[in-house]
Structure formats: structure tokens, C-alpha cells
């Protein structure tokens, strides 16, 4: 909220400049978001006297004026309808620059020279147009600089008012806070005072349908109102805090709202029907034309103010155009009320209409300010709109409204929370500075004071103070947080063990970044088209996404069930950036599977509406096109190898089972990853070219992904095994293997027949093509034998080897190559 320091000085004084005030407020919890200067300066604009007027020879609507500016007579063309001889006006001389940036020059208008411009209030940034140029009082001396009359300098602070402090939504409230912080005197604004006796009756009644919706409603009548511009000080201050001046009556209601925080509404009494206002729910009324001229649709929930012809205002939100104050207004019925915060908030939300008024009512009005604000406005109407106030008035209040009970304050609890040793007297003094009242314990209405040292009564403008902790905060705030102690022996200092999942995560990230993969962080959202592009079948569970119903983002409104689209989007971005391929990326992110959440303790009623949130590891190689030394596609074997290595490090016993399980995988180039005891936990493979093309990617991409939450989060417990120090014996097998026989099958047989001394086997060559019969492949497998007991003899090894080759030939028809 913008605060004018000029305005603030009506109520309080402080030491130092705007900056020190800003820092005082900031340290009291009122954050200053901005500081600016506000100036109305009109260089080159002076008071001038229109001596003669004549019709412009070429244009009916233009007037040729002879104007005396205190030094010389200038000839000026004017287009305003209200210009006439012997009038005092504001003249912009050649060289003047108007607030909008327009520079005034001697110019020819329809063939006649004009040596300046007679200005309207709008052109000078002093208000709206009231039928043309601004007319000054006849006594204004020509030649006087406009700055002397209308110039204004002010400093503005933009305050961030937290939702718990509606009392700060007016200048007076901020002044009251400054007074509490500095001990300065607070000056109250001048109010209308009702005369003791009067026989004049208001002749208006107010009926409140439900005191729950509207606990208090006051109405006052001002007669003989003379509409016109508001006084300069008021217009300047309104402009300074970003409000557009309209006319004296409307400006006064806005002014009082910005001053005291209480929204008011002025009805044109002459336009109201009947003599009774009703505060009620809209009921059957469905349409309402607001002051802005727009017709809005109501529903039953809207609270309205109605006369005998229907709604004249949306309670606490906006007035209606039917009873708008305008130039014909003579009598003003002034509303000042207390509307229920929730009712106003829901009404405003439904209309999508947040006004200065609704903003304040939603945060809760100040009960006692309802009448004071009305009286403040009545005083200003008397002063600046010539109004006569009818002493009789309406003030309907909920008779059952309960005042808040005093709050017990235990000084021990203050010190327990703050770590201080504050005395009761100091705490009480601090609270009293905020207009809080200490109730002697004997008189406390609340017998539940328990071990309280004092009972504190809260004024009507601090309804945010409801419990003891709120008072503790006020004490800490006023005392200054910097004066609170820092406990050097802070709690903590308990040894704690990291969780297993965090250890797994740490190891995964360390390993992948060390072998060339870069970690990415991607959005949790995906678009419906992404699911189509992946080619997921109709029944695929991943098509069942939670969707965000009020997203502001375009298109991306689903919570992802797979990480793949986000990965591909980042890959495309990087592939388009001419970086050196292959690109290697990985991510550890959550996906969201509706209805798959397991039991949680304790379970709340709606807990089953939450999705499961498994944590997926996904890694990808893109643009790797070469082959391994064994002649295999390098990218595909890389992702398989990385997952296998990682599994070994973390203690998973992952098995990669060949099989085309994913629609987005290339045929014959996919594995399902399974974990003994956990079932399927992931997938690895090459992505289908058409799917990639759908995401705008031409390079080959190989991916592996693992659901970390479905794997045991237990790192392997290491136990060192003895190892043989005897030399190894190596033998290479060169095999011709018929198609259809897999390496896994061969390896199983080799392990089975190789004997206890077979230490390892390794594929070092894989070849098909020239020199190899069709329907077969050549495999080179290196076997390493070692004994724990002694040197192995070549003949022993050869015997094992013979057993292996025999079995391979018998079972698979695999032949030794010459």
C-alpha cells in the first residue's frame, strides 16, 4: 500500500528522513517495498487573464483569445467550450512541458498563430476534465507560477501489509504504529460531532437480514451538498498514492478509506427508491450494474444493499450505477458498515472483482472505526462540500456480538519462547504502547487465566491478536529481535544417521556424474500431446494423469506419469545447440501415479486421493552412432552397461530381460529390468525413430530408467573375500554360433561346465558377415581360470575347456572356428 509522508505528518512526527522511517518500519515487520518521490511541477505554466475572445476565422469550434500572462498579451487558440472573456485560466507558455510530456510551441492552428495553450485540469495532471479548461478564482493574480498554486512534493513509501494487519491499511494506522514504536504523540483527525439535541429526523430505516453477514451498519444523511472538485490538498494526496480524483464527495469517501482503513459508500439519496435499505443475500436478483458501468451476474451468495427497487450496492465490494453520485446530487446517504470478511471475500472472488473496499473488508474491518470513519467523512463533507449533516442517524448492531475475552499472558512462557529474561513490567509497558490494556487479574472476565501474570485486553483494531503467542510476538517485535539472545549452546548436537535412500541417491549421482552424465532438473508437468507422441496404448496406466484444474501455464496441465517427455525436451534443446555428441544426461525425479499410493500412517480421510510418487532414475545417451569394438551399437550397450555397473555398486541384482515392452522403444532393442524379489523395476533400450521425430529429435537416443522406490534401499554390506594369489590361465574360445542362440545361454553353459576354477568370462569379439556362414555369428570369448590352491596346469584347464566346447556343440550346435 502506498503511504504519503505528507499525509502521515497530519497524525505523527518522527525523527530523520524517509529512509530512516523506512528502516524503522522494516524492522517492525512492515516491509518497505519501494520509495518514490511524487511531484506535481508545472514549469512554464502561469495564471493568465482572458481579455478578449473572438471566433476563429476558419473553425467554428475554436476560439481566438487575447490572454494577459502578467507580462505580455499573447494570442492563443483554444478549443474548449467553456472559454470566455474575463476568465482566469492556466496558460502553458511556449517552452512549457506538460506532465504527459507534450512540449508547448508557438504553432499555427487552422492558419492562425497560437502562442501557447490554455489548459484543462487533465492536461496538467491535476484531475479530470470538468467540461473543458480549468477556471481559477477571479482573484488569482496573472503571472503567478502554477507551481505556487498547484505544485506539490511528497515522498511515498510502498508498504507490504501482511494479511494479519488490516489496521495498517490506512495512514492513521501506520501513524499509530510509528507512535507505538517511537513513543511519539498521536494526533487524531477532526470528526463531525452530533449535536446534543435535534428534532430533525433521518426518515430512513435499515434492515439487516442476518447479523452474521453484516454485524453493523450505519447510515448518515448529508444535505445541500455542492458537487465540485475536492480541495487541492486532498486531490494531491490521492494522486500521490495512485488514486484518480473524481469529485469532492467520492474523493472524500476514498480519502477517508485511505486515511482510516474503513471503506465507505456514498449513495445519491435522490436516486434511491423508498425510505428503507435492506442488507440481504441477492436471492432472486441476478443482475447488477456496478459503478464501472459493467453488468455483473449475481448468485444467492452475494450480499447486497437494496432499496425498494432492488440492489444499489454489492456489500463491501462496489456501489451501483443507479445511485451514483454525480453533478445533480444534492443529498448523500453515507454508508459505513462492518461486513463479514468471508462473505465479502467469496462474493468478490466469484465476480473476479477485487476492490480497495473488498480487500479491506476481507481482512476484517475495525468495529469502532465504523462510526469514526463516517464522522470523519461527514466533517470533510461539511468543510469541503458545503454539506449540512442531519443529526439523526441509523446505527444497527448485532446485539449478541461478543467482545473478545482478555488474553492471559504468562511471563514464563514469553521467556521460554524467546530465550529471554524479561520482567513482567517491561512486557506490560511494551504492550501498552500498542494501546493494549492490562486488566487487573481480579477483574478478568476470563477465569481460565491459570498461572497468568497479567490479562491483556486487545483493542478493536488488533483482532489479529488472539492468543498468548501473538502477544509474545508483539513483545519481541517492539523490543527488537536484535536485542534477543543467541543461545551459543543451541540444541541439536545429536548424531544422526543418513537414510538409506539418501545414501543410494548420493552414490547414484556421484557415479553418473563421474562417468560423463550431466544431471538435469525437469518440470513435473507434461502435456496431453506428449502421451500421444509416446504412443502409449489406450489402456496404459500412464495415460491416467492427475490434472491441475486452475493452471496458468498454457497446455501443460498434467502431472507427469513418466519422465520421458521432459527428458526429450531437454535433449532436443541441447541437440539443437551444436554441442559435441554424444550427449549424456540423467535425472532423479518424481512421477505421479494416481490411485497407487500405499497405506500411510496416520491416514487422513482424503489421503487416498493422493498419488503414489515414485522416484525414478533416468539416464540417456543421445547421438552416439558408432559401434563397440565387438561390433554392437555403442549407445545401446552403454546404457545397459551403466545400469549394470550402477546396480553392482548399489547392491541391486538387476537382470535385463530382452523383450519389446514399451511402445516408444525400437523393436528388438529393449530390455525389461527386473530385480530378484521385486519384479520389474525399469526399462532400458533404444527409442523408436518415429517417436523421437515426434519430439523433434533426429539423433538416436538410448535410455535406461529405474524406479528407485521399488528397489531395496539398502547398500550392500561389504565383507572382504580372500583372493587367490596364484597365476591365472587364459583361453580364448572362437565360436561359430547359429542364430537364435543367445550369449546368456552360452555363458550359462560355460559357467556350468567350466569348473570351480573358472574365474571370469568376457566377450571380446562379435562378428557376422563376410567369411562367416549365413545364419551364424562369430563370437570371441575369453575365459580366465585360477585356482585358490595352487598353480593350475595347462592340461587341467584344457580338460575343462573340452567339457565346455563339447556341451556347447551338443546343446547349441556351436562350433569351434579353425
Amino acid at each position: 500500500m502506498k503511504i504519503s509522508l505528507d499525509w502521515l505528518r497530519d497524525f505523527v512526527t518522527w525523527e530523520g528522513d524517509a529512509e530512516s522511517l523506512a528502516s524503522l518500519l522494516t524492522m517492525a515487520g512492515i516491509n518497505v517495498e519501494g520509495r518514490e518521490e511524487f511531484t506535481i511541477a508545472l514549469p512554464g505554466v502561469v495564471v493568465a487573464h482572458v481579455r478578449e475572445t473572438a471566433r476563429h476565422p476558419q473553425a467554428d469550434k475554436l476560439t481566438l483569445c487575447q490572454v494577459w500572462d502578467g507580462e505580455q498579451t499573447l494570442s492563443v487558440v483554444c478549443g474548449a467550450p467553456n472559454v470566455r472573456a474575463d476568465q482566469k485560466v492556466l496558460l502553458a507558455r511556449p517552452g512549457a512541458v506538460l506532465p504527459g510530456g507534450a512540449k508547448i510551441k508557438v504553432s499555427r492552428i487552422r492558419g492562425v498563430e497560437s502562442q501557447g495553450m490554455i489548459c484543462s485540469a487533465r492536461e496538467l495532471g491535476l484531475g479530470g476534465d470538468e467540461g473543458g479548461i480549468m477556471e481559477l478564482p477571479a482573484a488569482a493574480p496573472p503571472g503567478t507560477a502554477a507551481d505556487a498554486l498547484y505544485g506539490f512534493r511528497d515522498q511515498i513509501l510502498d508498504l507490504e501489509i501482511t494479511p494479519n494487519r488490516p489496521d495498517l491499511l490506512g495512514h492513521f494506522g501506520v501513524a499509530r504504529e510509528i507512535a507505538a514504536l517511537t513513543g511519539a504523540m498521536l494526533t487524531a483527525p477532526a470528526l463531525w460531532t452530533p449535536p446534543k439535541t435535534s428534532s430533525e429526523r433521518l426518515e430512513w430505516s435499515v434492515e439487516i437480514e442476518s447479523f452474521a453477514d453484516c454485524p453493523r451498519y450505519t447510515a448518515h444523511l448529508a444535505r445541500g451538498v455542492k458537487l465540485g472538485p475536492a480541495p487541492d490538498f486532498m486531490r494531491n494526496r490521492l494522486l500521490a498514492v495512485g488514486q484518480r480524483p473524481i469529485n469532492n464527495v467520492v474523493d472524500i469517501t476514498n480519502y477517508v478509506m485511505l486515511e482510516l482503513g474503513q471503506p465507505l459508500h456514498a449513495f445519491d439519496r435522490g436516486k434511491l427508491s423508498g425510505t428503507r435499505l435492506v442488507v440481504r443475500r441477492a436471492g432472486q436478483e441476478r443482475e447488477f450494474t456496478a459503478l464501472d458501468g459493467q453488468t455483473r451476474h449475481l448468485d444467492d451468495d452475494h450480499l447486497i444493499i437494496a432499496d425498494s427497487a432492488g440492489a444499489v450496492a454489492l456489500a463491501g465490494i462496489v456501489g451501483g450505477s443507479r445511485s451514483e453520485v454525480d453533478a445533480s446530487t444534492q443529498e448523500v446517504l453515507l454508508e459505513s458498515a462492518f461486513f463479514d470478511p468471508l462473505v465479502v471475500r467469496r462474493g468478490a472472488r466469484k465476480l473476479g472483482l477485487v476492490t480497495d473496499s473488498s480487500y479491506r473488508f476481507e481482512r476484517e474491518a475495525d468495529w469502532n472505526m465504523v462510526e469514526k470513519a463516517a464522522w470523519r467523512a461527514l466533517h470533510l463533507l461539511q468543510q469541503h462540500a458545503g454539506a449540512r449533516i442531519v443529526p439523526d442517524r441509523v446505527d444497527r448492531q448485532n446485539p449478541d456480538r461478543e467482545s473478545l475475552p482478555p488474553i492471559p499472558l504468562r511471563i514464563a512462557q514469553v521467556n521460554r519462547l524467546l530465550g529471554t529474561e524479561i520482567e513482567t513490567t517491561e512486557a506490560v509497558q511494551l504492550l501498552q504502547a500498542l494501546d493494549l490494556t492490562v486488566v487487573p487479574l481480579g477483574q478478568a472476565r476470563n477465569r481460565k487465566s491459570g498461572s497468568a501474570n497479567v490479562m491483556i485486553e486487545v483493542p478493536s483494531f488488533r483482532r489479529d491478536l488472539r492468543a498468548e503467542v501473538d502477544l509474545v510476538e508483539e513483545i519481541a517485535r517492539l523490543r527488537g529481535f536484535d536485542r534477543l539472545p543467541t543461545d551459543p549452546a543451541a540444541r541439536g548436537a545429536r548424531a544422526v544417521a543418513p537414510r538409506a535412500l539418501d545414501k543410494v541417491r548420493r552414490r547414484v549421482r556421484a557415479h553418473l556424474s563421474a562417468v560423463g552424465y550431466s544431471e538435469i532438473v525437469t518440470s513435473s508437468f507434461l502435456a496431453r500431446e506428449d502421451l500421444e507422441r509416446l504412443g502409449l496404448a489406450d489402456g496404459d496406466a500412464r495415460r491416467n494423469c492427475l490434472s491441475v484444474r486452475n493452471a496458468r501455464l498454457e497446455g501443460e496441465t498434467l502431472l507427469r506419469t513418466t519422465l520421458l517427455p521432459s527428458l526429450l525436451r531437454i535433449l532436443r534443446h541441447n541437440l539443437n545447440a551444436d554441442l559435441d555428441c554424444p550427449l549424456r544426461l540423467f535425472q532423479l525425479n518424481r512421477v505421479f501415479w494416481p490411485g497407487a499410493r500405499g497405506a500411510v500412517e496416520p491416514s487422513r480421510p482424503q489421503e487416498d486421493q493422493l498419488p503414489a510418487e515414485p522416484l525414478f532414475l533416468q539416464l540417456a545417451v543421445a547421438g552416439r552412432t558408432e559401434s563397440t569394438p565387438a561390433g554392437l551399437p555403442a549407445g545401446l550397450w552403454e546404457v545397459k552397461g551403466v545400469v549394470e555397473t550402477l546396480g553392482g555398486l548399489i547392491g541391486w541384482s538387476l537382470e535385463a530381460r530382452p523383450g519389446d515392452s514399451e511402445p516408444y522403444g525400437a523393436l528388438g532393442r529393449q530390455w525389461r529390468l527386473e530385480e530378484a524379489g521385486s519384479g520389474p523395476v525399469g526399462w532400458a533400450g533404444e527409442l523408436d525413430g518415429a517417436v523421437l521425430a515426434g519430439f523433434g529429435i533426429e539423433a538416436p537416443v538410448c535410455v535406461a530408467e529405474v524406479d528407485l522406490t521399488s528397489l531395496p534401499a539398502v547398500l550392500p554390506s561389504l565383507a572382504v573375500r580372500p583372493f587367490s594369489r596364484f597365476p591365472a590361465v587364459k583361453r580364448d574360445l572362437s565360436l561359430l554360433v547359429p542364430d537364435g542362440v543367445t550369449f546368456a545361454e552360452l555363458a550359462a553353459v560355460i559357467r556350468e561346465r567350466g569348473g570351480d576354477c573358472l574365474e571370469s568370462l568376457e566377450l571380446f569379439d562379435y562378428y557376422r558377415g563376410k567369411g562367416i556362414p549365413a545364419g551364424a555369428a562369430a563370437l570371441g570369448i575369453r575365459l580366465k581360470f585360477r585356482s585358490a590352491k595352487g598353480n593350475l596346469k595347462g592340461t587341467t584347464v584344457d580338460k575343462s575347456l573340452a567339457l565346455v566346447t563339447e556341451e556347447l556343440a551338443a546343446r547349441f550346435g556351436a562350433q569351434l572356428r579353425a
Partner: protein
Amino acid sequence: MSVMDEQIARLRAAAEARIGAAADGATLEAARVALLGRRSELTQLLRGVKDLPEAERRVAGDALNRLKTDLAAGLAERERGLALAARPAGAVDLTLPGAPPVPLGSLHPLLVVLEEICDIFHSMGFTREEGPDVELDYYNFTALNFPDDHPARDSQDTFYVSDAVCLRTQTSPAQVRVMERRTPPLSCIVPGRVYRNEATDASHASEFFQIEGFSVDRDVSLADLRATVQQFVDVFFGAGRKIRFRPHYFPFTEPSVEVDMACASCGGSGCAVCGRTGWLEIMGAGMIHPNVFAAAGYAPDAYTGYAFGLGIDRIAMLRWGVDDIRLFYENDLRFLHQFRGAW
């Protein structure tokens, strides 16, 4: 052929012979001094050009300068030749770039900061917990003392999946979830992704990261919070950084504060980094509100505790001078690879 021309031709022939004959660096250097040095015949001739008749001056000057350039080039070429000849045949070019076994990858800067902060609190006895991204409105707001339909909810534009379910706007809901399961004393740290239904710009993302921390025991006080925060700042940002507590409002803490740290760029005098205030806001914090304890099912007044929340993105931006939050989510490898050394 003029006298000068003959002299130049002779000089050139002799010089080329001498350069060609130089068999090592030292003789070549001696040749350079003799041919181009201050006392060399060529330098003398050049000095004499200004005394020649005007008609010859230009031609002679040009020819001498050409000779000088040619000799310098010849010397350089011979030097390269000698260096090459000095290398044994088939030797490896040792200036070739090294070949590490694998290219380097990198960790994401946001998660580097997140893990580092978790480690610091871990060393102070905080255990790590997690909460769901998709959260009940109850835990995100109601249990944290946000009244239903209250303006305090406006400060956090929320993505809703249904009336009861939203994307968490803060990591704070974990407070109640953890307290429901555990009995104090407890000190926890909860990192995670949070969501705000806001337009994205250089300093706002609709998805970002926070860390929630809280500590609950019989008599935890604001003094403990100050000490804990100061220790964190000392370790993470470096010892001696001043902090201040500024009153603020959060529904789930009372008293509530924002924690500011003295700006490192200007040392507190005010600069563009800190918006000329001399202070940088690093976290929100406060004493856990009794209503939050009540939501967790703790007896009134049985415990006190503090809680704090840090924005990881902002801290990463401060630490590395990142001026646009969107860089973290664009995942351009030219950005990410700059963090290869960050752990």
C-alpha cells in the same frame, strides 16, 4: 645494376649462406646479431640512406628493408628447422590434449546447493525427511493455521488438483506430517520441490526448491533458532556474516521473522545485488504456532519449537551470480557444465 644493387645482392648471398650453415641454436643466434644487429652492415646501410641523393633514396630504402624482412624470415625458418631436426624421429607430440578415460559429467547446481545445505544441518543433528509433492490442502494450509478461505492463502497462488488436493506451495506441510508420526525431541530437514501458480520471469519459477527445517523439544526458544541460523550461515556463506531477524507474518509461526544476511557484494552499504538495502533475505522462520502443535496432536504447552524455510534457487543464484532463475530449468549443457567442479 647500381652500386647499391650489387652491394645488396652480395649481402643477401652471404647472409643466406651463413643462415643455412648454422647448425645449432647458438650459431644461429650469432648469425642474427651479425646480420641484423646494430653493428651489422645492413643496419649501417639503412642508416646511410638518408644521405643518398633524393632520387635514389626511395629505391634503396625499399630494397634494404625488403632484405631485412627476408633475412628475419629466413632466420625464423632455420630456427624451426633446427628445432624439428633436434627431435628424435617418430617422437610423440607431447602438446596433444590429455585423454581422460571418460568425459566429465556434472551435478545440477540446485541439487548441489540442496545437498550441501542438508549436509550442514545433518551435521547439527537434523534428520532428513520427505513429503509428497501432491499434498492435501489440509496439510498445506489448514494444519498450518491458514484459516479456510483466508486472505493469507492469496500470497501463495496454488495449483489445485481437486478441492482437497493441491501441489504443495511450500515444504512446511512436512512439519505436521512428521510430528504426527514422531514424538519430540525432533530436528528435521525436509528438502523438496514446491509449486506456485505464477507467471515465470527472471526471478520467479512456477516450480522451485525449498528446504524446511524444524526443531521441537520441551523448551526450544528463539535464541536456539538464532544460534542455529547463525551456524548455518557461518558454514555455508563463510564465517562472520552478520544476520538480522526482521518481524514478518506467517500463519504457522508466531513470532514470525524473515532472516536477512549482510550483503557480501557491498558489505552492507547497499548495491544492486541487495536492492540498495545492504541486506539479503535468505529465509523465513519463527516459533511454531500452538495451533500447528494442536493439529499434530501434541498437548498444549507441552513443547516449543522453531521452523524455517529456505529457497534453494535464490541461494544458488546468490552463490554463483546467476541472474535468471530460468537458467536452472532450461538445462542447457553450456550452463550445466560450468558446474562440473561443484559438489
